[in-house]
């Protein structure tokens, strides 16, 4: 149902055929020159990441800025940042599917891909943070001659399960959704290698009624499975902090506040990617202003929940009457990391308030700017939580300072490169918008067109 005066979810004048042509041609024709430049640049960053990781494995985590008291630094900040970004994909795909929100259709595919790549980047950090990544399998419970088991009461172990489950279900969900489109590409490809590859990946899809029936069942089941995962993963991540006793980490508001923050960050990243892509590949007919508006609203709502979290944290620190809690907040406001805290408020609380204005929500460039603020703000939020809580805890004699070294930065920036490189490859080889789902909504949206444009 389109409300009066709302822009449509597909631009007028499209037929199922034109949708298939336009989306599949991106994959089946040569890439524009900018793609090579952008992919090259991100690939260079991946090389830097590999170099930094090699250095790390040879020399150990001493090349990082970690110290005592700040034993959790960039690795955890980056892990939480990436895993947060990885939340929008599944939310858009699963929850919006169950809520019957048709506008999700053109953004779900690349949001899911984004989720997978973000989770891949996130997974990297705990592995290298253990210091001896070749022993990372110790995190998993398995019968062994040492008779050692992980501490099951620790949320760090729950994290292993939560993240691997999330990655598996997200991958399956994405792949199942791709199958009909892979078959379309198989049928349309001209090169032999492309035909064989897409044919292999489409698993013999012929589009029969039985296929569609099984497909629909599988997709809905996976959506149902994925929905609780959207909440559980970041809840467990928040437990990593909250079950401890450290002021600044131990707060009961953390689970819902982290989940909202994750969706906030995830939608910001979807907007960051969608705005340039729709221009560069001329997809404005499919990723319309309506999509951007809706994503802007989700970002505003989740941003307000995050701001609520900040308010309650400050209020409770005072209300608790607990000396250490109060000090923790005062240290954030006045301490050596106050600039990060103010920048965080600017990015996460002030900037998103622009989204109340409809002009901002429907102007892609402005929306992009707000989303960039949020991307930065959410990284800063994790920095503030991790570092300012640790660096001055109960004993003044064990206070300290923390700053990332160039290796910290190289790995962080390198992980952004990895994310982008994977994304560019995805755009090159797979349809970034679900072709067949778009075909199904085209008749509905086009039929309603006369009412909407009538004067």
């Amino acid at each position: 149902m389109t409300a009066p005066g709302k822009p449509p979810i597909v631009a007028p004048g499209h037929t199922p055929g034109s949708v298939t042509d336009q989306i599949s041609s991106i994959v089946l024709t040569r890439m524009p020159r900018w793609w090579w430049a952008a992919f090259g640049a991100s690939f260079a960053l991946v090389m830097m990441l590999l170099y930094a990781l090699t250095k790390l494995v040879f020399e150990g985590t001493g090349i990082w800025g970690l110290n005592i008291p700040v034993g959790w630094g960039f690795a955890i900040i980056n892990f939480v940042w990436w895993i947060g970004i990885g939340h929008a994909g599944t939310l858009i795909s699963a929850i919006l599917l169950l809520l019957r929100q048709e506008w999700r259709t053109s953004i779900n595919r690349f949001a899911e891909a984004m989720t997978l790549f973000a989770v891949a980047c996130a997974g990297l950090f705990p592995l290298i943070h253990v210091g001896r990544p070749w022993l990372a399998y110790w995190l998993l419970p398995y019968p062994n001659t040492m008779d050692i088991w992980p501490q099951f009461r620790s949320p760090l172990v729950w994290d292993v399960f939560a993240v691997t489950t999330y990655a598996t279900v997200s991958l399956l969900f994405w792949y199942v959704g791709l199958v009909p489109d892979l078959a379309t590409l198989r049928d349309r490809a001209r090169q032999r290698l492309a035909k064989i590859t897409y044919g292999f990946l489409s698993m013999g899809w012929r589009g029969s009624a039985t296929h569609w029936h099984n497909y629909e069942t599988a997709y809905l089941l996976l959506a149902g499975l994925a929905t609780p995962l959207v909440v559980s993963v970041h809840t467990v991540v928040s437990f990593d902090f909250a079950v401890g006793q450290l002021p600044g980490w131990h707060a009961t508001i953390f689970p819902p506040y982290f989940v909202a923050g994750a969706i906030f960050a995830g939608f910001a990243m979807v907007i960051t990617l969608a705005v340039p892509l729709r221009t560069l590949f001329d997809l404005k007919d499919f990723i319309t202003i309506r999509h951007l508006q809706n994503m802007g609203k989700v970002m505003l709502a989740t941003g307000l929940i995050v701001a609520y979290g900040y308010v309650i944290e400050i209020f409770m620190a005072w209300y608790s009457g607990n000396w250490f809690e109060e000090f923790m907040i005062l240290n954030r406001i006045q301490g050596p990391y106050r600039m990060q805290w103010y920048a965080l408020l600017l990015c996460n609380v002030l900037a998103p308030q622009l989204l109340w204005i409809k002009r901002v929500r429907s102007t892609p460039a402005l929306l992009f700017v707000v989303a960039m603020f949020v991307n930065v703000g959410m990284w800063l939020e994790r920095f503030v939580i991790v570092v300012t809580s640790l660096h001055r805890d109960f004993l003044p004699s064990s206070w300290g300072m923390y700053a990332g070294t160039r290796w910290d930065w190289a790995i962080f920036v390198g992980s952004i490169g990895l994310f982008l490189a994977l994304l560019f490859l995805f755009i090159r080889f797979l349809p970034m918008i679900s072709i067949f789902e778009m075909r199904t909504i085209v008749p509905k949206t086009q039929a309603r067109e006369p009412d909407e444009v009538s004067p």
Partner: protein
Amino acid sequence: MSEPTASTHERSFPPPADLDGLQSKAWIAAGIGIAASLAGWFLDPTQFYRSYLVSWIFWLSVAAGCLAILMLHHLSRGAWGLMIRRVLEAAARTLPFLAILFIPIVLGLEETYVWARPEAAADELIQHKAVYLNRTAFVFRTVVYLGVWSFFAYGLSRLSLRQDRTGDATLFRRMQVISAPGLGIYCLLTTFAAVDWLMSLDPHWYSSLFGVYFLGGQGIAALAFVILVALYLAQREPMAGAFNAGHFHDYGKLLLAFVMLWTYFAISQLLIIWSADLPEEITWYLERAHGGWKWVSILLVLFHFLLPFLLLLSSDLKRNAKALGKVALLLLAMRWFDVFWLAAPSFEHGHLSFHWLDLATLVGLGGIWLALFLGQLKTRSLVPVNDPYLVEALDNE
């Protein structure tokens, strides 16, 4: 866009005459309940004030929760809320009356709140909070909460009524524009209200999730109440033909979502506090695990979460209005137990006990509140007849 559209629907939905009879019964219940409560007040004023507080918070949760669901409905533009919008509005319009009914709580402040007693002056921690927890600030804040909520309730109701009369298409958008900041303000104020009314009963204890937990509970209380009213209306003309299984299916889904949300908050708070095991926090749970309170805690796990959760998973049950009504009734009862469980262990640090005044005040306040609610419900068409989504809402499968 601003051109007024004529009434798109020729059907009308006047309130059924049965509501008058129901309202009389509510007044009678109110009379009996108040008489018993007054007797109780003479016999045991302390117990009266404590029971009254629990009953008041329970009924307030229903009314305020309805305001929140109303704003959620305007915001989401969903057709699901149209059929119950008038119920939500009527419940929300009772908020100013609930403000008047708050007066006995102010009169008995020392009986219920430790921080209001003279001996609190000797407690260093309570002294720290005295800027916030004192009689004037407490009453002032409650007036602000109820004032702001009433402002939104009456503002939205007025626009909704104007939509009935004029069919002005822009009103739809205006109600949405009001609801967006409205819901945000509501959540923030309710958080502080939960701190004031319930958390401060144990002035040493704190939990930053508490407000959100209270909000989740309000959602359940309001939805359960609305489902029961919808069930009552669906058995009578003119709504008998208007409500269908699809509507109840939607309310059931929403109720399930709120049950899961409430449980999620409850578990998060418990797990974090249990795991850290700090003396200033865990005592609150220890009180609720001993002296018989353990059984109320278990009751909540079983009947506020497990049983309704399992039942509400079934889509057949959600589409069956009567069966859904039974689950709603169970949840509404559990809402009382939850409020009781939040408040009462902090009064007497000891054994679980029920008092007949718990029931008397619940019936007395409930009778007054229901009568006021029905009085409000009677004044308008039961469905907003000029809403642009009405046709879609009536066809909802």
